[in-house]
């Protein structure tokens, strides 16, 4: 037995002797790292490259330092970057310190790479540069060199600045967003508080028409503008929910034909409002709402014969409402996007493990932080980094997987995917100001409103959403009509994707019915039944064109119609704690 053991040991030493005796061929290894050899496919070369980097790190040769620095700086998403960072510590050359300090302080890097850089710096005798995330709010400084700070308990070493709202915005370089500020690095933790069930934000601009024309044949100038913008934000927490929004629309026109006749018109609408809900039991809540709107309508018409007509009207609404209800409808779109991401990785055999709610929240945090980016670059980089760090994404994504990921991230079919049931009753007190319009009633108006929504997401591709709304005027003075209306509608929508996850568009089918009364002796009960069907093409995250048809039975008359409409949006983002 002893003889056999000595024989085996001798054989092992003999086998290892050439390798130990022969120094690494550093130039050949460097060449293999830097250039894909002819006749070697890319996956094979990537493996060979990693192996070459390991050998360079173990070579002890100073000539390996420069190529490893290059790898450490450039390879943020392949394990070869980590091999290089670790190898620079092993090589013991102080010329690697600046590069390692930069990596250690770069919050856009994987946490594992930053940790490795700090370890290598320690091995080189340098003090690692670290930045900390304060528990709440405060500002953070990054020491120029050599400063030491602590890593927070959550492990998230991330550079942050603090905005007025308290949202963390990393101070690293990045793609400028719509507002010209820098975009954040991948968050290491869920940015949303534990009790946040869902959150959404949207900013949309639409130009219905904009034209300016002049022709010498008729000596006629014509100008039209119809533009609007709207911002909304909503947050659902465990015990509360609130949202606010506002918008404006401007319609303007000029017609100046030959002669004295001319027409000028301008309409400016501004509105804003908010809602707060307090949940007092399982699904039971009390609510308060407020809204204000103001409107200016200006019209000047000068004809060839008649005197000039000038009509300026101002109007304003101020309203508050209180009420109660049951249930909650949340925008689960962002969580569905995570599920779609998982499905794409699974179909590409790149899914290492399922994505749980905690990781989904972290992904959504990254998406939320990059919501103002003009491009999807940061979003994709953050997503890949998080998925790799969590072991969900097995290895570096290939071109096909990267494309699928990008398509899911940009897919607008996961915006505004509401889910749940909600019903409420509101008592509304409004004050309407119509001082320039003596024929129109103004002053106080009291209403009872009933609203209900039932929304169900049928997997990733389909949804069914229904609404019921009713209103009734109450406390009207004697002789003043008390109109009422009740209406319901439902829409089924199916999203269509191409073979690699690209959203092509959506089919929608809807139906609506409404009944109403003016409470006047000279009017009948109003009844309308209608149906719609349409196809929506999708061009980017918030921009669509829809072609649709409509059939409507109203007051006994039958109507068919077709229309094409479009919109362009800049921003749409959401968060949902759990999947429907």
């Amino acid at each position, binding site marked *: 037995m002893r003889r056999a053991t000595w024989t085996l040991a001798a054989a092992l030493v003999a086998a290892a002797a050439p390798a130990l005796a022969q120094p690494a061929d550093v130039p050949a290894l460097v060449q293999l790292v830097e250039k894909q050899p002819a006749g070697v496919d890319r996956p094979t070369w990537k493996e060979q490259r990693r192996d070459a980097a390991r050998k360079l790190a173990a070579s002890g040769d100073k000539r390996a330092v420069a190529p490893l620095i290059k790898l450490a700086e450039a390879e943020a998403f392949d394990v070869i970057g980590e091999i290089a960072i670790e190898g620079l510590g092993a090589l013991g050359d102080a010329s690697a310190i600046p590069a390692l300090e930069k990596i250690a302080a770069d919050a856009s890097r994987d946490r594992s790479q930053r940790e490795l850089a700090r370890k290598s710096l320690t091995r080189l005798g340098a003090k690692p540069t670290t930045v900390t995330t304060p528990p709440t709010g405060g500002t953070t400084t990054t020491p120029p060199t050599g400063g030491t700070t602590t890593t927070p308990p959550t492990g998230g070493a991330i550079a942050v600045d603090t905005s007025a709202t308290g949202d963390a915005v990393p101070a690293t370089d990045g793609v400028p967003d719509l507002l010209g500020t820098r975009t954040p690095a991948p968050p290491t933790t869920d940015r949303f508080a534990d009790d946040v069930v869902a959150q959404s934000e949207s900013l949309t601009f639409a130009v219905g028409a904009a034209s300016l024309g002049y022709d010498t044949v008729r000596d006629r100038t014509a100008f039209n503008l119809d533009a*609007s913008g709207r911002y909304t934000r909503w947050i659902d927490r465990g015990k509360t929910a609130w949202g606010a929004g506002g918008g404006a629309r401007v319609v303007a026109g000029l*017609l100046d034909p030959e002669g004295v006749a001319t027409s000028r018109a301008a309409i400016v609408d501004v509105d804003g409002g908010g809602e707060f809900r307090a949940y007092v039991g399982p699904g039971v809540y009390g609510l308060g709402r407020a809204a204000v709107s103001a409107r200016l309508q200006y019209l000047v018409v000068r004809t060839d014969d008649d005197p000039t007509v000038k009509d300026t009207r101002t109007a304003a609404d101020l309203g508050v409402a209180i009420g109660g209800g049951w249930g909650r409808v949340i925008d689960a779109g962002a969580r569905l996007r995570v599920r779609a991401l998982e499905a794409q990785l699974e179909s590409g055999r790149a899914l290492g493990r399922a994505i749980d709610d905690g990781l989904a929240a972290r992904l959504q945090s990254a998406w939320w932080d990059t919501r103002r980016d003009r491009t999807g670059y940061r979003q994709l980089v953050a997503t890949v980094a998080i998925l790799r760090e969590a072991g969900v994404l097995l290895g570096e994504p290939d071109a096909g997987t990267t494309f699928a990921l990008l398509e899911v991230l940009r897919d607008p079919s996961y915006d505004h995917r509401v889910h749940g049931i909600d019903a409420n009753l509101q008592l509304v007190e409004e004050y309407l100001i119509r001082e320039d319009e003596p024929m129109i009633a103004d002053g106080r108006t009291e209403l009872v409103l009933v609203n209900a929504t039932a929304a169900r997401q049928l997997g990733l591709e389909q949804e069914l959403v229904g609404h019921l709304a009713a209103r009734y005027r109450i406390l009207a003075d004697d002789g003043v009509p008390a109109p009422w209306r009740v209406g319901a509608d439902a829409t089924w929508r199916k999203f269509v994707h191409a073979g690699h996850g690209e959203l092509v568009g959506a089919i929608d089918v809807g139906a609506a019915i409404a009944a109403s009364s003016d409470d006047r002796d000279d009017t009948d009960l109003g009844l309308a039944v209608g149906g719609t069907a349409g196809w929506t093409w999708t061009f980017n995250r918030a921009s669509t064109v829809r072609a649709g048809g409509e059939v409507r039975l109203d007051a*006994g008359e039958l109507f068919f119609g077709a229309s094409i409409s479009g919109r362009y949006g800049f921003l749409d983002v959401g968060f949902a704690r759990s999947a429907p």
Partner: protein
Amino acid sequence: MRCTPLFVALLLGSAACDGTEDADGARGACASGGALAGCDDSPTSPAGACWRLVECGSYPVDGDEENDLDWGRCMNDLEGMAADRATLVTACIATSTCDELQAPGSPHPYARPACFAFGDR
């Protein structure tokens, strides 16, 4: 109101064939009340604008007389306008509140809403 075929009557109930000549009640979500009643702008198209007039109770769907201001007359008016004038009138109606669109005497109007005055020579 005109009596309609049987299938329409079945859908709409007795109101479609009640034999009265009254106009129809306003059926828009915001036909009464202000900002909190939930009144979105209408589609900026001739049909969208004319339906807003109906839903606000400004015009009936189908007037008693041939030349009454009703949905069909609204469509004819908008489609007969120069394109740039029609665009602005349509946008004006689509953004107006119901009370602004209700001419004195609605829903038996004797005057068009102010939006129609734009570009009227």
